[in-house]
């Protein structure tokens, strides 16, 4: 597929472009957090506990008088990091398993795909929570756990691509020229299978951010005092009858971020293959 063609289709998709812009904006916010945040996110001021949104605190304060806007801005760092590292792990495992299954076939394929089937039997949240019960909650553990429980879709994708590419002429030609397995996989098969992986990784970031926020909300993810969108909302639930802003704004941040990645992912998918746009 031509790069220029891809770009022109992508640019003409208004939703996809707005997704891209918002994702880029999120990156800027996360990187520039120390300059953008009006207060230190950990600064406790008990005199200003649970203040509703005002000029001084546009999104209000929490039960310790910390500025909610600043905590949401710093929370963007957690979300992005968890999203990217978790998806990185999931994609790596998925590509590896998919390559093995799709290239070698036979019993290796059987073993890999049965493993995928069994993994898909578990309610994902159950599996994640069980691992966290054993390893303990921390930002590193949840990144690894989300990665370890999210690779099955990618594995199936890559395997399917490999199966259809394996018998194509350019691959058969390369093989008959004596290319090794590794060279065939890395140089000829994988590069042609990467576009659907890219789409699923983009959508995967959205999913990972949702899971991280849910875990942090349940008290089993990012631990306070480190601010994450999920654990700000935990405090929001405890004070739901008196401080709506504590649950409302961080949730909005999650919604907008996740939606941006979804729009971006769908945009890439449609730009790669316009037929998908019904």
């Amino acid at each position, binding site marked *: 597929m031509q790069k220029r063609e891809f770009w022109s289709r992508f640019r003409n998709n208004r939703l996809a472009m707005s997704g891209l812009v918002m994702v880029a904006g999120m990156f800027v916010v996360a990187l520039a957090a120390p300059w953008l945040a009006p207060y230190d996110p950990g600064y406790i001021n008990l005199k200003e506990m649970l203040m509703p949104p005002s000029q001084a605190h546009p999104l209000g304060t929490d039960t310790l008088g910390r500025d909610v806007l600043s905590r949401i801005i710093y929370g963007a760092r957690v979300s992005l990091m968890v999203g990217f590292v978790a998806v990185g792990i999931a994609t790596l495992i998925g590509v590896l398993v998919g390559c093995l299954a799709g290239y070698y076939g036979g019993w290796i394929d059987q073993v890999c795909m*049965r*493993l995928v*089937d*069994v*993994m*898909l*039997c*578990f*309610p*994902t*949240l*159950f*599996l994640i*929570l*069980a*691992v*966290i*019960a*054993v*390893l*303990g909650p921390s930002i590193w553990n949840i990144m690894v756990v989300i990665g370890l429980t999210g690779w099955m879709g990618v594995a199936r994708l890559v395997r399917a691509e490999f199966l259809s590419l394996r018998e194509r002429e350019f691959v058969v030609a390369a093989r008959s020229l004596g290319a090794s397995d590794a060279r065939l996989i890395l140089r000829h098969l994988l590069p042609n299978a990467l576009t659907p992986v890219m789409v699923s990784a983009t959508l995967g970031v*959205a999913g990972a951010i*949702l899971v991280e*926020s*849910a875990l942090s*909300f*349940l*008290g*089993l993810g990012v631990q306070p005092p480190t601010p994450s969108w*999920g654990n700000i*909302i935990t405090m*929001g*639930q405890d004070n*739901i*009858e008196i401080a*709506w802003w504590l*649950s*409302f704004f961080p*949730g909005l941040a*999650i*919604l*907008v971020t*996740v*939606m941006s990645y*979804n*729009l971006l992912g769908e945009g890439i998918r449609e730009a790669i293959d316009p037929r998908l746009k*019904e």
Partner: protein
Amino acid sequence: MWFYLLKRLLLMFPMLLGITLISFTVIHLAPGTPVELQTTMDPKVSLEAQKRLKELYGLDKPLHVQYWDWLKRVAFLDFGRSFSPDRRPVWDKIMERIPVTLSLNLLSMLIILSVAVPIGVIAAYKAHSWFDKATTLLVFFGFAMPSFWLALLLILFFGVYLDWLPISGLRSLQFPQFTFWQKVQDLLAHVTLPVLGAAFMGLAGMSRYMRGSMLEVIRQDYITTARAKGLPERTVIFKHALRNALLPVVTMLGLSVPGLIGGSVIFERIFAIPGMGQLFWLAVMARDYPLVMGELVIGALLTLIGNLLADVGYALVDPRIRTG
């Protein structure tokens, strides 16, 4: 049909074995023995509980022996006893909570179906109309909405602001004194918000799927034929198109089981509903390993049963599956 059912049932055994293997691995993920590593640092787990855990899993034996011993007990539905003060068998604790979780999830499934199917059909029939665009927008919201946030918004609006509905538990304090109808009313009021929340989360995917399935069917030749022979449009859509478009939805329902059961952890925690999701959360917080393991296996088992029911249902409605 019986042959198909038998084949399908036999296929469950290797899956079950895989499920137990993964559950077992998960609990033994921690380097060293899970007991020492996690309990010496954690005052929540007493020395006595440590000893009991070691005995339970026979942690001095090699891993494959441990797995085999555990598997033999699980085969007879013996998941050991909970670490919590009541020390009740894990199986009993989970079984008394399963009906709550299952009935709530069934209710949400019914709502999902009864809303998503019409939405999907209309969106597909009038593709690219304003209705289609509006529901597409709704679907994007549904996919991006954190379920716990939706639950809190529901609480904020219907529970706190309007003060219409109760926001926690399954029944009011006065429940025992109520008449039968009051009891029904009370229960319904308590489950409304959690069920609506769970239903909204599933709605997005299902209506999208229904739309896709319907679009696919409308393009088929037999629909053109039905129209060409002069059948009224209503008959074409409801009798020829809808019935075929609904087939894949049966599978989709089966596939949505793990999501619903996983989601029950969140909804039951927020609305303080005594189901297996809440139990699981409590078990994880207390590091009640036998209970965590039991929940994990039973959660996967429910998914397996959901998939089985979906496959059997599909075979019942689509003769191509059971003969071919």
